[in-house]
């Protein structure tokens, strides 16, 4: 099934007689899984490069335009699993027009001939049509796992093709996509003798699936470990599903609100009591204090609790958390308020990751509700192992952030979003420069940073001076001049992804990074001061970069409204739509 290497020439054989046989090397390298390690292995020498490429079964491509499918299959003949990321991250926030690209089809066509034994495909921010899904389903007889995160271009009809034709499917993971939900009948397309499913996630699809079909599916798939249903599945239906699935490790409930009789409630409670293997729990939309207690028995081994769809109040959260003694990751809505976060601080000593999402992000004049700087500090006081935070708030202070990183100096991911642009320190009315300054000075392991609030170039001077391990930086509505961006480009040697919007950085800043961009995955700049001439200059000086400008309707010809720069061995895009100019 897998391709074999040709026998080496006599000279090669003589040389290798004294060194490691290839087969042994390949076997050993089979244990090397991390793609970064494999990258390092391939650079050691030609023999190792070859052994690595023959033994690699999984490939991760962080930017689908950095390489072409032809180049990929030429280098790696035995790939079983592909992970591809497409559009720039800001496309999640509607900054990238529809039909920009990142279409998977050309890849699938090449894979169909080179990787007919392909088993897994994981896509993020790519476009995939129903036709492509059907092509996928029919071209790869061993296909097992499909994961689509934040993708677009398809409808539930495309899922029908996957479900009906992939006889060995183990994973179907459909997450947060902008797709046409044409109904839930796709779920009924699983053949009656199909039993291999291990992961099923359709939580973000809106239409109702046939519950009987779902129940039968869950009952016959004895290896099912992950089940995340959508909102249309009621509590009573959930209880019926749980009867079949005591081996679940991850559960996403449907709507957690329904009129239940006492008997139905106790049935639900006992169903949850049987879910002792749950590590991850999510869903819980419309959860109320009335039924949350039914969950408590299932929380005993939870390490990840995702409450970002459940508008819990502080008291409800405070009652729930003590039942989750092993919690490491917690996602909540800001409806829990500072009081809820105090409960987090006191109940979750093992917490490593906290994400607080805004319940009403687009309300500008909210004066009550939400979380503030004191909730942030409260969490840090109790959760000393915290290293990942995503925090949406409407006010923050420099001193609070300083207190937080004093309590938790090990941040690797610090993403603070003060939701009103240019919002200063709530108490002192000064810029928030010192906050991010203390973050980068204290948290030496910082890999990812997102800044917000009123920020001058000083923030970026701090970042350039101290954030030596920084890999990803997101900047919006910040900075005073080109100097800010220049400091970052000059000072952060490990920077891979830089995304900037609405900042006063212009051509001088853009061009100061000439030497840097080839060691980065990509740069995004939108609504800054960069011009077409600046971009042309960059393109001229650095021919191995793709410098793309997305033209907006009605904007003038000299301003470069949206700029996307990335390194590529595949040359300029051949599939660029008319509004994407490659310079």
């Amino acid at each position, binding site marked *: 099934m897998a391709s074999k290497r040709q026998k080496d020439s006599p000279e090669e054989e003589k040389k290798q007689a004294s060194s490691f046989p290839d087969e042994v090397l390949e076997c050993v390298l089979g244990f090397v899984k991390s793609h970064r390690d494999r990258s390092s292995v391939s650079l050691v020498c030609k023999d190792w490069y070859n052994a690595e490429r023959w033994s690699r079964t999984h490939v991760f491509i962080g930017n689908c335009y950095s390489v072409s499918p032809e180049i990929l299959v030429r280098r790696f003949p035995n790939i079983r699993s592909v992970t591809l990321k497409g559009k720039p991250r800001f496309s999640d926030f509607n900054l990238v027009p*529809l039909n920009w690209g990142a279409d998977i089809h050309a890849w699938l066509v090449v894979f169909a001939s080179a990787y007919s034994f392909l088993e897994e495909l994981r896509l993020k921010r790519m476009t995939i049509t129903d036709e492509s899904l059907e092509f996928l389903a029919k071209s790869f007889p061993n296909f097992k796992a499909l994961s689509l995160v934040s993708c677009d271009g398809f409808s539930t009809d495309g899922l029908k093709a996957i479900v009906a034709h992939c006889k060995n499917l183990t994973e179907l993971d459909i997450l947060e996509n902008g797709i046409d939900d044409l109904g839930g009948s796709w779920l009924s397309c699983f053949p009656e003798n199909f039993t291999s499913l291990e992961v099923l996630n359709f939580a973000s699809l809106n*239409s109702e699936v046939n519950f009987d079909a779902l129940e039968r599916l869950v009952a016959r798939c004895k290896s099912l470990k992950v089940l995340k249903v959508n*909102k249309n599945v009621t509590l009573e239906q959930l209880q019926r599903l749980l009867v079949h699935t005591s081996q679940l490790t991850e559960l996403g409930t449907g709507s957690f609100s329904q009129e239940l009789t006492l008997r139905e409630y106790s049935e639900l409670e006992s169903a949850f009591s049987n879910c002792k293997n749950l590590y991850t729990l999510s869903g819980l939309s419309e959860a109320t204090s009335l039924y949350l207690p039914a969950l408590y028995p299932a929380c005993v081994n939870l390490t990840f609790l995702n409450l970002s769809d459940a508008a819990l109040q502080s008291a409800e959260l405070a009652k729930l958390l003590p039942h989750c003694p092993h919690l490491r990751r917690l996602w909540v*809505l800001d409806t829990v308020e500072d009081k809820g976060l105090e409960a987090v601080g006191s109940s979750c000593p093992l917490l490593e990751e906290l994400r607080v999402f805004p319940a009403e992000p687009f*309300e*500008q004049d909210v004066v009550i509700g939400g979380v503030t700087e004191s909730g942030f500090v409260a969490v840090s006081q109790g959760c000393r192992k915290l290293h990942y935070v995503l925090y949406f708030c409407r006010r923050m202070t420099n001193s609070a952030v300083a207190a937080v990183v004093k309590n938790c100096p090990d941040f690797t991911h610090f993403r603070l*979003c003060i939701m009103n642009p240019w919002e200063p320190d709530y108490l002192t009315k000064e810029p928030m420069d010192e906050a991010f300054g203390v973050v980068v000075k204290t948290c030496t392991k910082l890999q990812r940073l997102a800044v917000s609030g009123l920020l001058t170039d000083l923030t970026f001077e701090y970042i350039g001076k101290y954030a030596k391990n920084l890999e990803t930086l997101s900047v*919006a509505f910040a900075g005073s001049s080109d100097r800010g961006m220049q400091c970052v480009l000059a000072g952060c040697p490990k920077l891979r992804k830089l995304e900037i919007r609405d900042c006063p950085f212009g051509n001088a800043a853009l061009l100061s990074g000439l030497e840097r961009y080839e060691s980065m995955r990509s740069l995004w700049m939108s609504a800054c001061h960069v011009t077409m001439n600046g971009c042309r200059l960059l393109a001229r000086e650095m021919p191995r970069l793709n410098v793309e400008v997305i033209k907006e309707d009605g904007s003038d010809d000299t301003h470069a409204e949206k700029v996307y720069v990335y390194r590529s061995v595949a040359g300029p895009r051949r599939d660029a739509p008319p509004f994407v100019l490659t310079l």
Partner: protein
Amino acid sequence: MERTVTYENDLNLKATELRLGLPGTDDSDKQTPSGVRSNKRTLSETTEECRSKSNSGTSDARNDDTETAPAAKAQVVGWPPIRSYRKNSFQPKKTEAEAAGIYVKVSMDGAPYLRKIDLKSYKGYPELLKALENMFKFTIGQYSEREGYNGSDYAPTYEDKDGDWMLVGDVPWEMFISSCKRLRIMKGSEARGLGSYV
């Protein structure tokens, strides 16, 4: 290695001004407030909602440019950085003090990007349809209960709370704006098969 680069005329500030408005937003009449802090963009070029009251620490010169009352607040595209699936799925339990606008996305078959409109800013179907015609530069035909939109290349449709795609105009206006989740201007030939999707 020094590099002197001439940028010709592109120090034209207007061309490089930081704009937060949606593409096509007209900014020709806005005033420039004086005394604005140097690390902020000239606010007259930004859309109204950035002049929110909570930005109290900034220059009070901003209070001068109130010629446009923030009645129909446009949104900064993509801010705060919340993914769209989150926006639509969550229904806040708390009652909102003042009814916010009902913002829905409008897509049109063939157009490269979407627009957003506030359904509350229209008093009824005629106003809405006119606005759509202006926004996307096309014409909608005559609506009739029996035949939908006749005599045009496009038909306005919407996705309702149940996830079904409906023709705009069939239900009373109030019912429409409370159940409409998004709009799609469909090519006429597709729209005639609308009933068969459910």
